[in-house]
């Protein structure tokens, strides 16, 4: 095992897959010599050259459309959208073209395309550079949505994503890039579509993803130390298709459910998870579930405002106690 950062793990996955398959290339803004706005692709331009690490104009529709055209004609592009907040400018290409072309053409084509992007709040980047828009992509049939919470998953999932014959929205978190974790030296492919139980517990299930998994685990430890409340923490990992069985199995045991996410509360991931549990595993619930999410408010700039509403360890502790005290 090597201790590397989340950023290094993603770069490792890209490097390994580019070395393995010369159809794999990177396309995006500032991904080349500069190494990416988040420094994820640093060094890959020097290693693989301008043909395989392509800097584009600031033209998100052209980036996604060109990646799609390449994917339809024998290549395996990894397109980078610098901030998830920028997907608004290329959303037609993602949700009407990339997601639907295989279905609309009756299965005549495969779409081996990865769209890498990053989101998340907590850095004071304000309303247009901090969002967690994963629920948008889960709403659209034809996309798989993956959000790793740690270096090992990031590397193993990205490698699987690049080898997939289907479009993957691979969403990183800007505050995870410097987080370190163990990554095996040998090749590891982690399957898309599987949630992970990160901490076993018997009193309540916390279903979360991305950086909020870290807060959920910290909150679980705190709840056990201070109140002897034993939480099970699930990292959903893939948000679409959702691994609902892992959530159901946990709720069958704990009888209580809290969802935690950074995305907006309305029609969010928590809403979907809770809907599935209440419609398919209702009888196991002892009390009403609760969702902890970002309130329906643009993300404010000022640190005091942002941290007032962004879910964190303390808010998770309070939410768990609220579920159990109904």
């Amino acid at each position, binding site marked *: 095992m090597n201790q590397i950062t989340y950023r290094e793990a993603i770069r490792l996955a890209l490097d390994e897959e580019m070395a393995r398959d010369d159809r794999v290339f990177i396309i995006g803004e500032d991904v080349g010599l500069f190494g990416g706005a988040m420094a994820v692709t640093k060094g890959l331009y020097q290693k693989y050259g301008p043909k395989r690490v392509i800097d584009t104009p600031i033209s998100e529709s052209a980036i996604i459309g*060109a990646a799609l055209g390449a994917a339809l004609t*024998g290549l395996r592009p990894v397109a980078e959208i610098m901030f998830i907040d920028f997907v608004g400018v290329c959303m037609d290409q993602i949700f009407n073209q990339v997601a639907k072309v295989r279905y609309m053409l009756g299965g005549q084509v495969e779409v*081996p395309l990865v769209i890498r992007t990053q989101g998340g709040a907590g850095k004071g980047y304000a309303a247009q550079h901090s969002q967690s828009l994963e629920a948008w992509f889960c709403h659209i049939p*034809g996309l798989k949505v993956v959000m790793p919470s740690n270096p090992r998953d990031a590397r193993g999932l990205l490698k699987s994503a690049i080898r997939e014959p*289907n479009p993957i929205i691979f969403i990183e978190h800007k505050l995870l890039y410097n987080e370190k974790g163990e990554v095996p030296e040998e090749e590891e492919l982690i399957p898309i579509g599987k949630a992970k139980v990160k901490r076993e517990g018997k009193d309540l299930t916390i279903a979360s993803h991305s950086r909020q998994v870290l807060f959920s685990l910290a909150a679980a430890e705190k709840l056990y130390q201070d109140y002897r409340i034993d939480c099970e923490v699930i990292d959903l990992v893939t948000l679409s298709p959702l691994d609902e069985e892992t959530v159901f199995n946990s709720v069958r045991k704990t009888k209580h459910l809290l969802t935690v996410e950074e995305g907006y509360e309305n029609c969010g991931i928590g809403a979907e998870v809770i809907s599935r549990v209440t419609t398919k595993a209702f009888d196991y619930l002892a009390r009403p579930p609760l969702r902890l999410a970002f309130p329906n408010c643009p993300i404010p700039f000022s640190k005091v405002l942002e941290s007032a509403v962004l879910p964190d360890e303390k808010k998770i502790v309070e939410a768990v106690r609220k579920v159990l005290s109904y």
Partner: protein
Amino acid sequence: MEVKEALLLYRSMYRIRRFEETCYELYLSGKIPGMSPHLYIGEEAVAASVCFFLNQDDYIVSTHRGHGHCLAKGAKMDRMMAEIMGKETGYCRGRGGSMHIADVTTGNLGANGIVGAGLPIAAGAALSAVYRGTDQIAVCFFGDAAINQGTFHETANLAAVMNLPLLLVCENNQYGLSTPIKKTCPTLRLSDKACGYGIEHQTVDGMDVEVSFSAAKEVVTYVRKMRKPYLIEFVTYRFLGHGASDNRSYRTREEEAEWRKRCPVKNFREKMVLHYRIDPKEIDTIEKEIESEISQALTFAEESPYPSPQTVMENLFAATGGSE
């Protein structure tokens, strides 16, 4: 143009014309479900000329008015007709319909229901050809209205800075649904839009078959040899409305009559006899063959089964590990 080229070109145009006329009749008789099809009647010289010079492995990306491109690139009428009727035997197994019709085996990467959305996809196919080191080119057909979409500008710019072998074919049929292009575009020639991107360009008369044919030859050759983008505008006219149900209240019947005088199919047929000295019987034979292709396609489509409702979720995703 040589005689044998003239015959092939006429066959291609007449095939489109009769296919579209048949679609129109089918729509009126209620045999085509959904949105009224966007027919290509009047614009046949464009698709027929451009595709004449393309190889099977060159790519095209098409539009909502895409039957003509699909046919000219080599698709079969029977599977197209079945698709338009929503049958399982259609190219898209009845999942796409008129607006998403494509035969990928002939290099057609798809028609598109979103104006201008095909442009960056075509750029990606051109990028792919460069990446893989082939001599393929990509052609994007798009209408006059698409030139005002951001995707046109993003694509033209990207293709120019990356030297992509991309032929941009603007089919200026004068109207974006009901709105005349004169009202929405300040330049007289739409091809002038290429100037800002340093892309070679020209505007030609898309109703003149010989002019269209020689221009298509020139620009396809340019893109293939130079490995650079090119923008060609064909000035043309859709004889019918935006869709088959459009009553064309926004233009006069006199205007339509003037354009119909310039019908590429009819005029070229006359020219073939007078100028190319082709025996009219030879043309009759071509037309008869196409009539027979149409009637076979109709029988095939009408007798084909509808997709089973149990298959509705099929092909959402490819099997993981399948092609990897």
